């Protein structure tokens, strides 16, 4: 059931022309015909059933829906699925598995960098991007908070997320 597409959002109207798109998501190729107005966030969640990407504000403010599009972080709620035609996408599902967490996930777990978890997928993607792109990231309080400034968390007060960024950096460079 869970793996069946849910077309409640993605349905093409009878008189509407669909657009054929082809995307690679977490290394898997997908071809679909979609409504032009379908948001990439809804495409990932409803069509591909990759529900790790969360949808918060749907106007680009909260950062929950952040993914990587051709290697760069992007808001999937501010991208139409048709714009992603031909793109390579990575979602939070690419970072690890329940029994084999990636370093950033492990750090969030160890540091209690989440409470309700709703914003966490976005934070994980942004932190992964920050630490991977910067060989010597600014790990000062200000530097980390600037890197996280596009993502909102209403539970933690951010302290433990900041700690998790430093821990993730350690884990990524351990051994």
């Amino acid at each position, binding site marked *: 059931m869970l793996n069946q597409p849910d077309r409640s959002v993605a349905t093409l109207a009878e008189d509407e022309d669909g657009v054929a798109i082809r995307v690679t998501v977490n290394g898997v190729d997908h071809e679909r015909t979609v*409504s032009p107005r379908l948001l990439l966030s809804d495409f990932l969640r409803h069509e591909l059933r990759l529900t790790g990407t969360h949808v918060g504000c749907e106007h680009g403010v909260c950062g929950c829906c952040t993914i990587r599009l051709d290697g760069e972080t992007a808001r999937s709620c501010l991208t139409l699925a048709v714009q992603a035609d031909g793109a390579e996408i990575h979602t939070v599902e690419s970072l690890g598995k329940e029994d084999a967490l990636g370093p950033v996930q492990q750090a969030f777990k160890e540091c209690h960098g989440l409470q309700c978890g709703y914003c966490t997928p976005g934070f994980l993607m942004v932190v992964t991007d920050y630490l991977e792109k910067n060989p010597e990231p600014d790990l000062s309080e200000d530097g980390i908070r600037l890197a996280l400034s596009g993502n909102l968390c209403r539970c933690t007060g951010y302290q433990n997320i900041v700690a998790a960024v430093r821990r993730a950096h350690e884990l990524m460079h351990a051994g």
Partner: protein
Amino acid sequence: MKPPRFEYVAAKSIEEAIEARSSFDDTVILAGGQSLIPTLNYRIAQPDAVVDIGRIPGLDTITVQDGAVRVGAMVRHRQLELSEEAFAANPLLREALGNVAHIPIRNRGTVCGSLAHADAAAELPAVLLCLDGSVTAHGPAGPREVPASGLFLFHMTTTLNPDEIITAATFPALPDGAGYAFEEFTRRHGDYAVAGICVVVTLGADGRCASAAISACGIAERPVRLPEVEAALVGTDLSDTAVRAAAAHADGAITNEDDGTGGRYRRQVARTLISRAVAKARQRAG
């Protein structure tokens, strides 16, 4: 919070995009979508057709030549921010771009899209205005160059015709020895500014201010130059006292009074930002 239905046109050339603009009543151009898609999600915009220019080849290049940085319509904020060539010609661009939203937004949003959107509080329109830059607007009759001084009409409104498309923006390089700064104040990092100030100054042989260009965003119904402040700075030694006196001339330009104090607060913020920005520009000049 889902976009309304629209016809989708993935244009393969500028000509095709212009034609699409003419064949529907109400069209919008989709480049990066970072301002357009929220307005579609909110259904503030309900266009007949969305014309996607993201597949048109050749629009994603930055060229630095003839003393200017030319930015194609699909160049993303982040691409310009990180361009070493653009930085060498005009470091003001990187400084201003660092204030535009957040990295994930800058990765997608385009420079020309921001100029076309013309939000009165956005940074890039003020930068284009400060530098006396221009945009290339393509319409059915071909391209024309529109100077920044004749582009911004009102909040989210430009002088361009509905069938025109901005295909490039030209930001002049800084003159040799010029000092520059972009300073803004936001309630939270990445938000639209309460006020933003863009400054370019040059010094004469006597160390006094030979020229000053100052623009502002967030203070009026469109980005504006502050000619009274500029005039008051020229000829001075740009000392803190001189700058503070000149900054007071910005008061009259501040018509955006939605700050809860009838504009008093914003006037204070603008004066302070002018002082900071000019001080920074003065240090960098020479």
